[in-house]
């Protein structure tokens, strides 16, 4: 028969077992009823019971937001001498291994959280000393003055390796008594009978590629909590389900995104200018494709630079490859000299939010709430989201703490509802900051594209600080922006030279990404026939180009004519771009076995 075993856990409340799912059914989609052909095979002789444990608060995601929330909770617990069990699960094998960011950190939130961060050895070693902004043309560079007050001004900020900061935050959290569990992915949201969130379950392990249980099969574990915080970062897979279940997006714009690709280079000491921040827009992107580059000189003892390229995922040309735009940007006469004689030592990629204020969903629901880049608090023109993510985590902790430690709390639902978090966020600097810059990104959608946007920013932000009474809308979802391939021109990308620019596969190898081979691919398709029928036929298979890890390939079928989509799930770097940009919205990223994915080191 054509049915395939899928291990993926269907979220219908009673069906928690490896299911026989005919291809065509959406695994991990919320279903109210169970189609008749989904019958658990109960005489597998496999142990189906899940071990469950209770905590006061469970946090999904060990990034800046999750860790800030955990730290703040424990600080409050210690201050008020209350017992509080805080458990944090993180899919990366170690805290920081899936973290990727530019980054120029605005230390405001960190200082609020841990005022003596410097004495405690937080890895903020590189104050920004020089700030350079350029518009690039193919061969030249137009300098743009960064006037004080413009969002991209970095005075007072630090160039950091975000992975190292996150790792340090993890150490602070552990010292305070937070239970950190890296290597364990939250795969499923658990619900009480009244529909409120009960906690999460980690994924089952030891399932073979075909969905059948291996000898080492073991069910995941349930972690129950009074409140669960979801801090999965940009485009979290559990958040995606929560949006649907609790209708959290009914009064906001769809989220819009960009993909950020990054490399770290050890450069020639003579080229090294510690503290220097460079940003550019323009070439190689056309004026209607949002994006630009960053290049930061770190000062941590070695001549390291962190550099990368961001492309807005609302781009329209299906032939565009963000990876290859990044590689060819490095050859620009303003950029290449810095890298000549140097050695590339790291590579990675991650999607980031660009929707800003207009795209913030409802943040709380019975039993849980959303923090950090998951709902999305990035200040797009500043290209900073970490300070707001951390603040959201802290505000969440401050709102949760009194309720979770209250002696006799009257709650309508079994899982606690904490609307105070959203109210406090609205009254905080996060809200004011995001409101002020809300129109900058959408202002790029005009005939003059990039230049129109920059003029808008100059007039309305620099002079009026975002006080204009209107709020621009976004243009719809990123996935719906692609034009059919026949309406677009293929882009001629230069071949990588192996010294400054590189091919995709050697880049992916540098990310250290790996997954247990014999497990069901975690990039699931709702309908197996759509990739060839729609993505390839109409859009020439854009997933081959927007995936920064070479997961998707259209290859000829073994016998006969035609093509098929090959999914090299092991390469995945968990960037989430495919789930965002697939024009058919057919690709559903679910979390693979915990511990898999990239092994970023100080990215």
């Amino acid at each position, binding site marked *: 028969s054509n049915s395939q075993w899928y291990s993926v856990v269907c979220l219908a409340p009673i069906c928690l077992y490896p299911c026989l799912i005919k291809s065509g059914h959406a695994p991990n989609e919320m279903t109210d009823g169970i189609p008749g052909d989904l019958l658990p095979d109960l005489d597998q002789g496999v142990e189906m019971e899940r*071990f469950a*444990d209770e905590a006061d608060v469970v946090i999904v995601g060990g990034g800046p937001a999750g860790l800030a929330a955990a730290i703040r909770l424990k600080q409050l617990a210690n201050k008020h001498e209350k017992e509080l069990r805080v458990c944090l*699960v993180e899919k990366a*094998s*170690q805290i*920081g*291994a899936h973290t990727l960011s530019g980054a120029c950190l605005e230390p405001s939130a960190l200082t609020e959280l841990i005022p003596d961060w410097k004495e405690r050895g937080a890895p903020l070693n590189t104050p920004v000393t020089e700030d350079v902004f350029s518009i690039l043309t193919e061969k030249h560079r137009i300098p743009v003055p960064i006037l004080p007050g413009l969002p991209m001004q970095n005075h007072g900020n630090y160039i950091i390796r975000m*992975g*190292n900061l996150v*790792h340090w935050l993890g150490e602070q959290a552990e010292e305070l008594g937070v239970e950190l*569990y890296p290597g*364990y992915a939250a795969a499923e949201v658990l619900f009480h009978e009244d529909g409120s969130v009960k906690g999460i379950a*980690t994924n089952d*392990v*030891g399932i073979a590629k075909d969905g059948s249980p*291996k*000898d*080492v099969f*073991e069910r*995941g*574990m349930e972690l129950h909590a009074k409140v669960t915080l979801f801090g999965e970062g940009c485009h979290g897979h559990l958040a995606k389900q929560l949006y649907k279940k609790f209708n959290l997006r009914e009064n906001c714009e769809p989220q819009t995104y960009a993909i950020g690709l990054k490399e770290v280079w*050890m450069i020639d000491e003579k080229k090294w200018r510690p503290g220097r921040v460079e940003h550019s827009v323009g070439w190689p992107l056309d004026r209607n494709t949002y994006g630009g580059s960053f290049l930061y000189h770190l000062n941590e003892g*070695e001549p390291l630079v962190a550099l990368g390229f961001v492309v807005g995922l609302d781009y329209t040309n299906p032939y565009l490859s963000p990876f290859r735009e990044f590689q060819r940007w490095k050859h620009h006469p303003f950029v290449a000299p810095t890298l000549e004689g140097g050695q590339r*030592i790291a590579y990675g990629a991650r999607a980031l939010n660009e929707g800003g204020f207009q795209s913030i969903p409802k943040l709380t629901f019975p039993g849980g709430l959303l923090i950090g880049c998951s709902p999305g608090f990035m200040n797009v023109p500043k290209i900073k989201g970490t300070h707001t993510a951390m603040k959201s985590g802290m505000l969440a902790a401050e709102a949760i703490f009194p309720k979770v430690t209250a002696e006799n709390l009257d709650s309508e639902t079994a899982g606690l509802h904490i609307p105070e978090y959203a109210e406090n966020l609205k009254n905080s600097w996060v809200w004011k900051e995001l409101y002020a810059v809300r129109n900058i990104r959408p202002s790029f959608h005009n005939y003059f594209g990039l230049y129109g946007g920059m003029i808008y920013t100059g007039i309305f932000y620099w002079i009026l600080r975002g006080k204009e009474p209107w709020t621009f809308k976004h243009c719809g979802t990123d996935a719906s922006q692609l034009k059919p391939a026949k309406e677009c021109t293929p882009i001629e990308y230069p071949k990588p030279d192996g010294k400054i620019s590189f091919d995709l596969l050697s880049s992916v*190898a*540098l990310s*250290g*990404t*790996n997954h247990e081979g014999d497990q069901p691919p975690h990039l699931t398709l709702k309908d197996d026939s759509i990739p060839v029928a729609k993505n390839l036929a109409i859009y020439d298979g854009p997933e081959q180009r927007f995936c920064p890890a070479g997961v998707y390939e259209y290859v000829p079928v073994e016998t006969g004519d035609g093509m098929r989509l090959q999914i090299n799930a092991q390469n995945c770097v968990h960037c989430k771009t495919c789930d965002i940009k697939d024009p058919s919205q057919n690709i559903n990223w679910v979390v693979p076995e915990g511990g898999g994915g990239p*092994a970023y*080191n*100080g990215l």
Partner: protein
Amino acid sequence: MSGRVLVGVKRVIDYAVKIRVKPDNTGVVTDGVKHSMNPFCEIAVEEAVKLKEKKLIKEVVAVSCGPQQSQETIRTALAMGADRGIHVEVSGKDYENLGPLQVSKILAALAKKEDAQLILLGKQAIDDDCNQTGQMTAALLDWPQGTFASEVSLEGDKINLVREIDGGLEHIKINTPAVVTADLRLNTPRYATLPNIMKAKKKKIATMKPADLGVDLTSRLEVLKVEEPPQRQAGMKVETVEDLVGKLKEAGRI
């Protein structure tokens, strides 16, 4: 018979990570790099835990020699089913110079101290590929050794072993106490699942220094230089057999 098994576990750079040589060519970069338990050590732990589950042995003790982070590796072994751990603290320059001979001396001392009946190790570590520790430990203790084991079964006070050798499989029977090193096909290690990691936090890890066991860590080896393998030169495609022969002659190969 004590029924006690000592399992050695080593913390190594994860096999999927791209190794980078330090700019001063003294070694590879390890700071912040993802580490995990040596895959062959995982197999050894699994075998020990299986023996305990079959009630053929009574206690599994996981041992690791290294810096503070080695405790994470021991915790993984505890989560897989080991009963307690021993962390022999070695750090800094001593750790950089730590090799099979010193580790064997430590294991031999521990085996006597703990009255071990069996020592289970991985056949080799994936960072240095030495494939020496098991053999040296057996020699220091004057115990039999069963290396490259792909099947282990206890029969009274003897062990039946199948060894993977170049020509095929070798079946041997050795007396206990003995040292056995695990090869790839011995078993499939179980996952260290979250409930077990939580339980493992309650299991004990004793710490000690090599000096406590009377072991001298002086190395008789000196690493002169560590280099990247030479860059692979681009190949060349030729159209005809004559071209190929011509090019080979040019390069002086024929």
